[in-house]
């Protein structure tokens, strides 16, 4: 090879390396995300503060605010859920341990108790065991997850926050959201009416699911998920303590009115490995036993 060719090859090779290295150095957020998920999976107890709201053209039509205390080791948990549906507030408290689930709603003074039958408890315990994947299995799952998210890994950006945490962010515009996601979302929104009528009379104790269902505007045309923003906050111990998702959907209802529906979900984890669930003392309280109506169909 003559020297000219060698020079050209050398310089372009160096530039190539520079390009690749600078591009990969700028996107390290994905690895941090994976590490933190793996670590957070192993916590025994946590307090989760979850807030979700649904906006239609700027006005909030539905919001949920819940504080859940879960202790996975003792297998009990409690949560306090506040739902504001179209201006109507309802509050619920859930307490569950290995034997029963107790529900208290703000609509009356009764405590609704559902005994978890023996088999179910056993099943759930078995399931719980299976959840602890073997190392090999976990590696396979990780590989599949890597392959599925391949196109997005580069787009995860990371930023240091003033409180010492690291913020990871994935901002997907319309054309980055996979067609499957668009299809599922539009299918769901177009067929929302039928689902509502099917479930209208189901419920648990005082809770009628129909009351808790948000009145999402019926969209029929031009439906698309226009933007999805996912955020995660990783604390200095590499636990994933905060998660945030904003999903923007736009579409037109049968009258041709444009709707911009936005779903916000914020979840914060707290007191990792230090949470004790609240318990309820049913003595002297009005207790109603609830039978699971769908026992026969569950298998």
């Amino acid at each position, binding site marked *: 090879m003559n020297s000219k060719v060698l020079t050209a090859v050398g310089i372009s*090779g160096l*530039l190539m390396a520079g390009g690749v290295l*600078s*591009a990969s150095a700028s996107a390290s957020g994905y690895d941090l995300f994976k590490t933190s998920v793996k670590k957070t999976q192993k916590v025994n107890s946590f307090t989760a503060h979850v807030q979700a709201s649904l906006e239609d053209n700027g006005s909030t039509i539905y919001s949920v605010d819940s504080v859940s205390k879960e202790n996975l080791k003792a297998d009990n948990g409690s949560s306090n859920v506040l739902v504001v549906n179209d201006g109507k507030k309802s509050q619920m408290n859930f307490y569950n341990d290995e034997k029963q689930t107790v529900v208290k709603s703000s609509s009356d003074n009764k405590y609704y108790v559902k005994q978890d039958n023996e088999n179910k408890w056993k099943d759930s315990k078995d399931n719980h065991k299976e959840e602890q994947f073997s190392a090999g299995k976990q590696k396979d799952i990780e590989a599949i997850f890597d392959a599925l998210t391949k*196109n997005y890994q*580069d787009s995860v950006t990371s930023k240091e926050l003033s409180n010492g945490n690291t913020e990871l962010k994935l901002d997907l*515009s319309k054309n980055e959201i996979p*067609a499957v996601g668009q299809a599922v979302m539009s299918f769901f929104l177009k067929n929302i009416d039928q689902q509502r009528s099917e479930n209208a009379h189901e419920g648990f104790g005082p809770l009628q699911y129909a009351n808790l269902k948000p009145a999402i505007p019926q969209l029929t045309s*031009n439906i698309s998920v226009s933007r999805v923003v996912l955020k995660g906050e990783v604390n200095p111990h590499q636990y994933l303590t905060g998660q945030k998702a904003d999903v923007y959907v736009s579409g037109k209802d049968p009258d041709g009115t444009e709707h911009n529906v936005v779903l916000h979900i914020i979840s914060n984890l707290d007191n990792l490995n230090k949470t004790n669930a609240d318990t309820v003392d049913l003595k002297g309280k009005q207790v109603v036993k609830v039978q699971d109506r769908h026992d026969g169909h569950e298998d």
Partner: protein
Amino acid sequence: MLNLRNEWMKLTRRRSAITLLVISGVLPLIAGPVIKILQNKFSFTAFDGESFPLAMLSLAVSFYLPLLLALAVSELFSGEQEQKTLAFLLVRPISRMNIFKSKMISTGIYLLLLLLIICITSLLSGAIWLENFTMQGLMLAVASFLLSWFPLMALGLLFIFLVQWIGSSSRALTFSIILYLALMVVNFLFPGLARWLPTYDSNWYQRWINSGLSVLVMGRTLFLLSWSVLFYTLGYYKFSRKEF
């Protein structure tokens, strides 16, 4: 440029080339109504007028165009060697550099033409059949199609370099296809290694659309440019030393 016209004729006057150009235009025109019928039947919207051209593009850049590119390269280089017609060209007062350049530029124009045909027909198809066709979507689609030329051309230069060792167009085509499939496998299974290959950037128009000029985009642009320079140089070096 000397010889460019010549090479362009060789590339586009073949019956297969014309057929392929027609097919490239017809496929998006058919896909539009088919998608509309399916979406109406099952009542969902996976593609609308805005996203349809981009969906067509992502299919084209990952399967269709690399194959057509391999076909063009194998015809222009190995094919001509096989038919022993290159000797006529070499005795004319045109430098080897010019011959190599004109072949490469013809490939580039051919690729651009294919992209434009798919772009226009899928825009038309999206506008006619699917809802929510917007001006912004149109601009986005045109920009994406034009941007896709770069990573594909980088791949094309790799093909051009490697087929210099192959003296038959059918073998060159087979080799290029297998090579491309291997690159795709690497891209999926070994992400660390994939960063060093242009197939990693097959959907790089998405990076431009979403993040604009970021460090990542600039790094990848630098990579693609230097990759192209590298294989252009090596390809020419091999071509200039070859005995026909």
